[in-house]
């Protein structure tokens, strides 16, 4: 019941936060736009003058893509580098925004003034917790190291199960089992970090490492419930991805080429905005769950 209640509260709270959804969408959009700009310039320079550019309107044509890749490999490398730098910056901005999201979500109902000055409260919180959350990200490397060690340990197990690679079907299944294990671990680490951040904000704790250790303990003590809540939210995300995919595949054809480009773009941005909503739902639901545990 506690899990379902937390899930419901999280969904409700996220829906009541359109401004925060907008901030999260905007963050994502700006980074996407940066890559778009670089890539658009690159395309204009590499293929813009060619008749082959028309083929890009129809579908992704690998023969054209390979030509670009081979003949403009240095520019492509540069593009990859830009992408990498953007990912790093995005990570830092995300760490920053966490503080804002949690500051808003943890506001007591009576804090009307703070709710009225939402942007100010949001960015104050973001600034306040940035240093602590950044340290938390560094401590999280311990978990990522463990993740890679587990993966390494799976290698000999795989060899054993597949008869050193000679049992193809076992190899095939084992590959997917590894993917599932990998995803499970990634989600587990994310969940631990979510609770760590919640604990830091709720307790206004400066002892980041201690909070980190405490939440690892908490997650494993309440393993079934924390996991159930997390996977309910993951399931929500999957359902929306399917809805988006179906909607995108069934978009009507437009007579105007501009509409052919613009409408899918609009749908895509709605999807990204939903991702923002889901992020808030994750934080909110887990916050409610954390508070319900503290109440015991």
């Amino acid at each position: 019941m506690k899990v379902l209640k937390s899930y419901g509260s999280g969904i409700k709270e996220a829906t009541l936060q359109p401004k925060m959804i907008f901030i999260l969408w905007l963050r994502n959009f700006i980074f996407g736009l940066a890559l778009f700009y670089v890539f658009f310039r690159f395309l204009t320079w590499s293929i813009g003058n060619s008749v082959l550019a028309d083929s890009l309107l129809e579908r992704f044509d690998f023969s054209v893509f390979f030509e670009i890749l081979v003949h403009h490999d240095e520019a492509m490398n540069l593009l990859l580098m830009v992408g990498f730098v953007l990912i790093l910056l995005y990570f830092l901005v995300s760490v920053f925004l966490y503080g804002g999201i949690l500051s808003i979500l943890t506001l007591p109902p009576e804090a009307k003034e703070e709710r009225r000055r939402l942007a100010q409260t949001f960015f104050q919180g973001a600034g306040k917790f940035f240093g602590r959350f950044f340290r938390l990200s560094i401590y999280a490397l311990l978990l990522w190291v463990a993740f890679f060690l587990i993966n390494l340990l799976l290698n000999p197990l795989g060899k054993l199960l597949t008869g050193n690679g000679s049992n193809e079907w076992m190899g095939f299944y084992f590959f997917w089992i590894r993917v599932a294990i990998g995803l499970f671990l990634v989600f587990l680490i994310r969940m631990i970090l979510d609770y760590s951040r919640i604990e830091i904000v709720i307790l206004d704790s400066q002892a980041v490492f201690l909070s980190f250790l405490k939440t690892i303990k908490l997650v494993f003590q309440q393993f079934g419930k924390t996991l159930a809540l997390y996977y309910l939210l993951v399931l929500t995300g999957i359902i929306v991805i399917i809805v988006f995919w179906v909607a995108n595949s069934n978009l009507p054809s437009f007579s105007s080429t501009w509409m052919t480009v613009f409408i899918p773009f609009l749908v895509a941005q709605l999807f990204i905005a939903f991702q923002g909503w889901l992020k808030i739902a994750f934080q909110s639901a887990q916050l409610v769950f954390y508070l319900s545990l503290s109440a015991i």
Partner: protein
Amino acid sequence: MSKILLLVMVSLLTFSPSSLAGLSEPIVNYHIKAKLIPEEKSVLGEEELTWINDSNKYISELQFHLYLNAFKNSRSTFMKERGGVPRRLKSNRKNWGYIEIDKIQVKDGPDLTSTIEYIQPDDDNKDDQTVARVTLPKPVPPRGKITLHIDFYSKLSRVVFRSGYHKDFYFVAQWFPKIGVLWKGEWNCHQYHSNSEFFANFGVYRVEITVPEGFVLGATGKRIDATRNGDDTITYTHFQENVHDFAWTASPDFLEFRQEYSLENPPVNTEMILLIHPSHRNQRWRYLSSLKNAIEFYSQNYGPYPYPTITLVDPPLGGLGAGGMEYPTLFTSFAFSWMPKGVYMTEMVTIHEFGHGYWYGIVGSNEFEEAWLDEGINSYSEIKAMKKYYGEDSSMFNIHGVKISDQVFHRVRIIASSRLDPILKNSWEYYNGATYGINVYSKAAFMLLTLENYLGEDVMSDIMKTFYERWKFKHPTSQDFIALAEEVSGQDLSWFFDQFLKSPDKLDYAIGRLRSREVERPEGILEGEQGLFEETEREEAQEQDKMYRNEVVVVRKGELIFPQDILVTFEGGEEIREQWDGKERWKRFVYLKPYRLRSAQVDPDNKVLLDDNFLNNSRVLKPKKIPLLKCALDLMFKFQAFLAFVSF
């Protein structure tokens, strides 16, 4: 026993040697008795070889390939050229392979064993033992023949390159002492190189193979006998004329599927034999359907498949080193049990390796010296066959709308290559394995596709059919192919082959400049002026008489020359096609038109497949932004979705 005898009798009755009889003079005649010794991973053999001296010289020495010695140690030329020994060989002393001649003697004559001497005709590597010569007590005269009796022992290596074993799977190829080719009066008997394949005389093979009962055996040629020996072994006898090699495989795990294949036009009757590893049973349909496609394609495009059998071997996962290799009437492909339907790798390899039955097996070019003649012609055939059966743009990959063709796969290899070698070169003299592969497979295939587009499909089809018909069961050279192409097409093609076969240089034509300018009315003091217009009249006249000077400059950026078509389109919808011999470094085309130029394309029909860069083949005056916008927005969304997923 009675069942086996019945099978043999039926086989003999249905075996029709008439389609092959007399197609070539059997220079060699091998009768081999071989016994597989599983516990030693070896083969004990006796070989009776009759060889005819078809030169006009007296021959006082014979040269033999001892290919398995490439796997004897790290000092063989093969291993040195590879740049190291694979771990699978190094890990255990038992994993190495070699061949020993225990005894060689003239039948009913002197013992020549003491005259055996390893030679290295291609390099100075004294450690290489892949070629040996024996000295004869008296020379073989022109058109004379000699029969030798050879006892040999072949220790198989773990299968890493083409032949060897993996657990109970044996792939036995290049396994017996094989005489070199006396060609143009000289021995053509090259060492086993990392890049090169093989060359041998056509002949008759009768091979008796003894394996433990329970092993399923596949081999070159038709099975004509099977006898249980009473000691838990069984001896299978295979016979085949007009082949230049003999390979076999055995495993207790093989599942055997036999299916008759018939074609009316041209008439083909053969038996397809599939030996498949149990874990790949679900891929059986894939193998058989692609093999049927291959037989149909090659029979209809080159000539009817002439042999009574074709055996397709599917190696197990640990034996993939044997996969994707051709031998007369037997070849290996590969598959994975989980391979999705839209990935046509198995189909491509099956068609390619079957095709070698024609380009190598029947038209027996020298793979050591002119590998393009089999690999290039066969890759050309493979691309065409894959297009026919699996789609123009999806012949390699077709899943959820993502399509990649076999042709694109080959093209990427070519345009990404470093152009260090030409197509025609001794196989072992290439810069490395990659440049060998790119040149003799992909670039040679594209050379032929370009030639086809230049001459027309019908002419090219005649060339290929005539080449096959004239050179089947013989040994053509590049020059023979060129001469035949010129004869059939009625054109001098030396300019084509001199460039594309013998030069590593680049072919690249591009639209260098595109310009459209309004022609200004003449000003100043001009002869013949009739006086001044009224201002309003002049404006109207200007609007009506507006002319544009449209200029297209086509440039040759590469060293190689090829005649080019150029398509120029105008805003009014008019199209003009130009032709240029492509010899100069650039060529300007100017058009005075009442409308502007829209675009220009060099090679608009995409005929010159060897052109290095398709991106610069065309140019538009006003670039369209929408396609670029769509593509960039697609990437933007994918990046956004990725960021959204990884950020929290």
